């Protein structure tokens, strides 16, 4: 069995239990509720959050022979990979239409294809302006192919680098805090998006299209230094599955269950208990405790540290670093049920010019939604006919540059209506007449995203895309390159949120990196 073969590579070193306790453990070996009632059965790892990252970590840890419990506060697994019926007969995924690519190696080792997840890469992307259109066919030698290829290669290199850094157990602190190797895409961390697009020989339409692709899930001012890093996102997402993103969630769940992971649904994790600098368990919302040696948290950095620990339990530099971590939630979605059969495959970007994007950024910072917003429309029912009845369509609109905190107060009903109106305008712009054929619509505003996933500021990417928050730099990177995410200064805690070390542009990679880091640290006997 794969499990045995792989676990033979690592030798487990459990702390020695007294004999009586060991006997008691064996007695309760088949009682999955035992650990919950604190009978002395410890899980080797508790994973908070049963989204793509948490399940990927559960699969890898389960296969390595660890006892894993996945704690999910919702009623089912999958995280943002869900499909919801927002109107009778019309279904759509409220948060993401497609996923960022799963690194092929990881896809293979998680064995997802066999559990039913067939993932197709993005085929085509279109940008629409007043009087013209532009199309990019991925994989063909299109205009923007060179830059897209560079971006794809850098994404792969970054994921590989994060994974190998995770697998290398940290050595003793070096005399000089050196990070000898440059990270891929380092030059983009201090370049402007406008500059990079200008220096690659691109026609202006292709450049605007690429900028729209790069900023489809985040926000930046294309004229500011550091905005070129968003190019890593161009072409990253758009991978679709048979059956929508929910199918990936199901496949991951099946694989995790067959790897032996256990699940706890319905209760929220409320804090992480520690004693003598070691993690002893996770406290749940109903007061019970799950005894665990290590914790992998798939919530974002801020939420993990500020929720699970008391403010005075963490060293001040860590608290300051976490507080200084910047989130940049900027997306809102509107789901439309349209009484027209629309057959356009692939996302359609209503792309404003670069200077309008810059204005949208300034407005977003001030808490206002600008007049010209980047909107991406996606006819999800064209790829998956089950989502809508015949001769109807489901169209999703993803709007960028939507501030989480509005300058004039909370997200009231009126504000949501304004969002709906803006999205309907975009729909009308691309398909004249479709605006009138809208049967129903559903607004997913930033606060909804925050509530659904405990994503601070409604930021699904886990933080602002900036060079000082990713690529080896982070809130505690001054402690040395061995503290790069997924490891944290808290012994036994690993972060696997869609944070920016690996996760923003790759699905499941962050969870895999956290699992690898955990296994590497275990193998070395917790040398930190």
């Amino acid at each position, binding site marked *: 069995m794969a499990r045995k073969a792989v676990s033979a590579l690592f030798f487990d070193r459990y702390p020695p239990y007294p004999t009586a306790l060991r006997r008691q453990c064996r007695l309760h070996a088949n009682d999955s509720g035992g650990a919950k009632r604190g009978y002395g059965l410890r899980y080797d790892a508790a994973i908070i959050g049963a989204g793509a990252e948490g399940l990927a970590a559960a699969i890898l840890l389960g296969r390595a022979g660890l006892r894993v419990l996945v704690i999910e506060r919702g009623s089912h697994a999958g995280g943002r990979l869900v499909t919801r019926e927002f109107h009778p007969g019309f279904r759509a995924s409220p948060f993401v239409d497609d996923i960022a690519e799963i690194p*092929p190696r990881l896809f293979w080792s998680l064995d997802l*294809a066999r559990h039913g997840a067939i993932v197709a*890469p993005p085929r085509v992307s279109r940008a629409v302006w007043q009087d013209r259109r532009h199309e990019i066919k991925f994989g063909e030698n299109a205009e923007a192919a060179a830059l897209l290829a560079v971006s794809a290669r850098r994404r792969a290199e970054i994921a590989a680098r994060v994974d190998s850094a995770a697998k290398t157990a940290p050595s003793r602190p070096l005399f000089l805090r050196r990070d000898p190797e440059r990270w891929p895409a380092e030059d983009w961390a201090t370049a402007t998006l406008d500059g990079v697009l200008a220096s690659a020989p691109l026609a202006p339409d292709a450049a605007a299209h690429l900028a729209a692709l790069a900023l489809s899930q985040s926000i930046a001012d294309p004229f500011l230094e550091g905005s070129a890093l968003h190019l890593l996102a161009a072409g990253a997402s758009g991978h679709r599955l*048979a059956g929508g993103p929910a199918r990936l969630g199901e496949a991951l769940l099946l694989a995790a269950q067959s790897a032996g992971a256990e699940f706890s649904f319905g209760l929220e994790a409320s804090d992480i208990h520690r004693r003598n600098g070691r993690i002893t368990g996770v406290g749940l919302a109903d007061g019970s405790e799950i005894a665990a040696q290590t914790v992998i948290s798939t919530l974002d950095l801020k939420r993990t540290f500020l929720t699970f620990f008391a403010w005075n339990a963490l060293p001040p530099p860590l608290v300051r670093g976490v507080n200084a971590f910047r989130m940049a939630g900027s997306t809102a979605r509107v789901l439309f049920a349209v009484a027209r059969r629309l*057959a356009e495959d692939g996302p359609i970007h209503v792309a404003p010019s670069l200077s309008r994007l810059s204005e949208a950024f300034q407005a977003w910072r001030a808490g206002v939604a600008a007049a010209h917003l980047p909107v991406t429309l996606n006819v999800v029912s064209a790829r998956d*006919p089950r989502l809508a009845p015949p001769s109807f369509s489901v169209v999703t609109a993803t709007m960028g540059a939507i501030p989480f905190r509005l300058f004039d107060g909370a997200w009231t009903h009126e504000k949501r209506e304004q969002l709906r109106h803006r999205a309907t305008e975009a729909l009308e712009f691309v398909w004249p007449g479709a605006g009138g054929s809208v049967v129903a619509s559903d607004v997913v505003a930033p606060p909804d995203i925050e509530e659904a996933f405990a994503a601070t500021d409604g930021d699904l990417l886990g933080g602002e895309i900036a060079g000082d928050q990713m690529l080896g730099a982070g809130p505690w990177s001054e402690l040395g390159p061995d503290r790069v995410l997924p490891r944290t200064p808290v012994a036994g805690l690993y972060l696997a949120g869609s944070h920016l070390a690996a996760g923003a542009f790759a699905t499941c990679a962050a969870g895999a990196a956290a699992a690898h880091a955990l296994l590497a640290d275990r193998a070395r006997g917790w040398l930190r």
Partner: protein
Amino acid sequence: MTLWATPFHARTSDANRHNAWLARNGVALAARYDSVEQEALAARLNVVVADISWRWRAMFEGASAEAFLSKLMTRDAAALAPGGAFKALWLSDAGGVRGAGVIARRGRETFQLTASAPDRDWIASAVATRNVPVRDISRDAGGLAVIGPYAAATLKAAGLEAELEPLAFRKLSWRGIEVTLSRWGEHGGTEIWCAPDDGVLVWDRLMRAGAAYGIVPAGVAAMDVLDLEAGVPRPGLDYKPAREASDAEPMPAALGLLSLIDEAHHGFNGRRALLAGRPSRKLVGLELDSDAPAPFTPVLLNEKPVGHTLRSAYSPALKRAIALATVDEAAAVAATLLSLTLPPAMAKPELHKAVARVASLPFLEKPASIDA
């Protein structure tokens, strides 16, 4: 040698933007219409239509046809009722595989053999002794395979409402033309056979019906990838079929085709040699740790050679290169890690080792049908 254009050639050549053609069994076929990966994935996500007119078909008629076929095939043709079909092999005298195909009983004394590769001369000489007239009817009909989760829905939308069991076939009248529907393929789809003159009409009707489900045409290369993912070895691509009477290779066990042999059927050609039994290798699937395929490459377990790969291709669904391989029993355990040497490539101009994981066949299950 001139190649035969299939009845759908007018449409396939229009759709073949890249002008990528290949010849199989003397038929000109589109290798790919868009990209192999897109088509192979579309077969698992939506629905595809593939031109399978290259399959070799032979018709056996007459009173002694049943007896002949029982002697020829590894399953008993006498047990077939009219309208039924089975899949079987036919072997050389020494027990080597000569071919695999579907025998369909079209009438009391009429049998049709559909196979991937022809074996005309040997069968012609065999029937000469038995006085069974055999006709090559490959050019008499064109065939399209409709494969994918929405295949059934597409056919329903086109008006072909036959609820067919696997391996069944039926002749229908479809809005003015005669077609035969069958389910002989390995991918869970349905085949439509029609007269050459009706080819374009059938194509158009199917494409129109499947437009709502994202139908695309699939070329031969994509179908070969699907075959590979289903773990089906093909003569001429994976193995050289036995051609001499004394050829004992390839053995059915080594090709994983033992399921096509009926133990209880006595008297088929080569049975004695088969029962004499020899240790044989097994057919396994290998998932390679690379994107580059490695066909016909020796594989090693702990530095000892234990077999070799057959056909290999990149599988877009598994995101790996996969291969069929015949390996010794010891190495044929699932999840074993074998190693093989990849040939130099442009990016890596040296021999380099890759790891392959043994997987049980099929790599992927047939795409489950969705009722739309």
